[in-house]
């Protein structure tokens, strides 16, 4: 199978310098934050790739890069064989390509316009992409979309505040589906929801994927959710992918100490009584990352080269891992 989405050595640097005048007066240097460094992966058509990691590891930045909300500093992002940066005759990003890529955001309270009726919210992508022009046909399509997410056509008359969090997230999904996308980027879609509602949304997403052949990039910090929904998993730490591979391989036999640590940190529902060793330390400041492997100050397997040389992603035991100690 060929890759549907390809990222090649994508990096994103943000300029977080103080204002020019402060730099001159206080003689401060410019400072840059390397949010994503040298990330490469493929997503095959119809599969779900999940990115996991703690806050600030760059997983949401990757999502925003793919959807085109940020431009990569380096590297290329190809969707369906086309470069996302290629502009059309209006100097605009290719609408045809944009139509295929849609995004679902974390907070269903903030991602829906509170002044719009649900039907207008869901119809917006249809109108923007001029998929349908006839109002009656649009209404029919909106009703159909609301039906996909287990809402009724009558719900289209209401405003977002009249819905619960789970229903709102389903409205976001209906809106994302409105442009007949092939690829959905889901940035923590269930983190703001209660577990029973989360189960409803996850089941719905799996059903839709099967029925419509969607490809998902699923971003989450919850490893159980990722394990449930994904086919392949990429673990990120401080802007880099440290381990990526098939879900069964990565979760079943983690090779990177950070993956191991994340798995150990999950509360043990089975209560087997096995002692957990919470890993000491915290994510370092990304403005001043440690030399060598970014994980080395917290790593239990640290040895010679770890604080001198950053490890490369190397194929090992059916997955790719960036660790001197593992390989």
């Amino acid at each position: 199978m060929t890759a549907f989405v390809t990222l090649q050595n994508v990096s994103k640097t943000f300029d977080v310098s103080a204002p020019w005048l402060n730099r001159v007066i206080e003689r401060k240097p410019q400072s840059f934050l390397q949010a994503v460094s040298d990330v490469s992966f493929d997503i095959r058509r119809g599969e779900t790739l999940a990115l996991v990691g703690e806050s600030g590891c760059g997983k949401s930045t990757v999502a925003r890069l793919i959807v085109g909300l940020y431009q990569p500093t380096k590297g290329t992002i190809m969707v369906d064989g086309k470069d996302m940066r290629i502009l059309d005759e209006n100097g605009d990003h290719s609408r045809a390509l944009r139509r295929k890529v849609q995004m679902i955001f974390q907070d269903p309270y903030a991602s829906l316009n509170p002044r719009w009726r649900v039907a207008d919210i869901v119809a917006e992508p249809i109108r923007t992409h001029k998929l349908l022009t006839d109002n009656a046909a649009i209404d029919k399509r909106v009703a159909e979309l609301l039906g996909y997410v287990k809402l009724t056509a009558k719900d289209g008359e209401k405003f977002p505040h009249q819905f619960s969090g789970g229903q709102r997230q389903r409205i976001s999904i209906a809106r994302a589906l409105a442009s007949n996308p092939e690829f959905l980027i889901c940035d923590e879609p269930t983190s703001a929801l209660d577990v029973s509602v989360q189960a409803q949304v996850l089941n719905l997403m799996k059903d839709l994927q099967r029925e419509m052949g969607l490809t998902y990039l699923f971003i989450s910090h919850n490893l159980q959710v990722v394990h449930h929904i994904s086919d392949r998993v990429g673990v990120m730490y401080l802007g880099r992918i440290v381990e990526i591979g098939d879900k069964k391989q990565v979760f079943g036999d983690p090779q990177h100490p950070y993956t191991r640590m994340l798995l150990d940190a999950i509360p043990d529902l089975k209560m087997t009584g096995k002692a957990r060793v919470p890993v000491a330390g915290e994510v370092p400041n990304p403005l001043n990352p440690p030399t060598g492997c970014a994980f080395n100050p917290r790593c239990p397997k640290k040895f010679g080269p770890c604080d001198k040389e950053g490890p490369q992603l190397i194929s090992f035991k059916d997955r790719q891992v960036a660790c001197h100690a593992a390989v």
Partner: protein
Amino acid sequence: MTSSAVLEVKDLHIEFPTRKGVLKAVDGVSFSIAPGEVLGVVGESGAGKSLTGAAIIGLLEPPGRIASGQILLDGRRIDNLPYEEMRKIRGRQIGAIFQDPLTSLNPLYTVGRQLTETIQTHLDMNESQARDRAVKLLEEVGIPAARERIDHYPHQFSGGMRQRVVIALALSAEPKVIIADEPTTALDVSIQAQIITLLKRLCRDHGTAVMLVTHDMGVIAETADRVAVMYAGRVAEIGPVSEVIHKPQHPYTVGLMGSIPEFDTHRERLIQIDGAMPRLDAIPQGCAFNPRCTKVFDRCKSDRPELINAGPTQAACWLHAK
């Protein structure tokens, strides 16, 4: 309930008078916590778990009010105390830890000043004694170089370190009870594990009773001794944590446990509870869970079940009525 309970809540009702009528947010909740015990309170948003916690510390926001019921600390009623007397109990005998460590610390004062202020308010200590105690507390909660860090401001700490400071604050006057309302929700998983372990160890060492309010069953499984599952302002099931997790008796608890994705049991679909928790102004007659329940029968729609013994746990479900 045992007489040794340090905190006892009896038939607590919390209501909100509104223009459209009185809304019952907490409807007849009873439980007790023994010294050194951790009672987990789980439930979805709006189940009334945080309100119960707020009522215990006496921080219910008006117009919310305790309509009936009693809260007893060491056998003494505290729900009807005047404001000034409650102030003395709050912090001294009941500590609180909230979800967001940044908003529960004052950004304008150093953590040391906040700690010594709390210590001096509640304990008879002079400035330097209080400061020594503050340093000791910070060391106890695992803040490295506590002697230097004590003069730092909250923004100079990371999220996990801030929550450690909040725990130190809550423990500063050696309270008998700590109400921890979603203490790890705002933290990353690896930090969450550190904080849970810390909270558990400290409370065991100090013999502090903890009411741990959370929506995360995993946190409960790790920390709590007993667990109360709340639904629509009522306790649906209460019992020892391993029983409730492994052999849930109430259909709501069964659904709740099934909706958590797990590693070793792979399911194509998660068990889902259809529908949503009822709004406060539309709580159905009988059992509040009956419209979503898969095992509903006639009696559920007419009579409200009280907690009934169901093996080692108690469940508010007619299925267990003899």
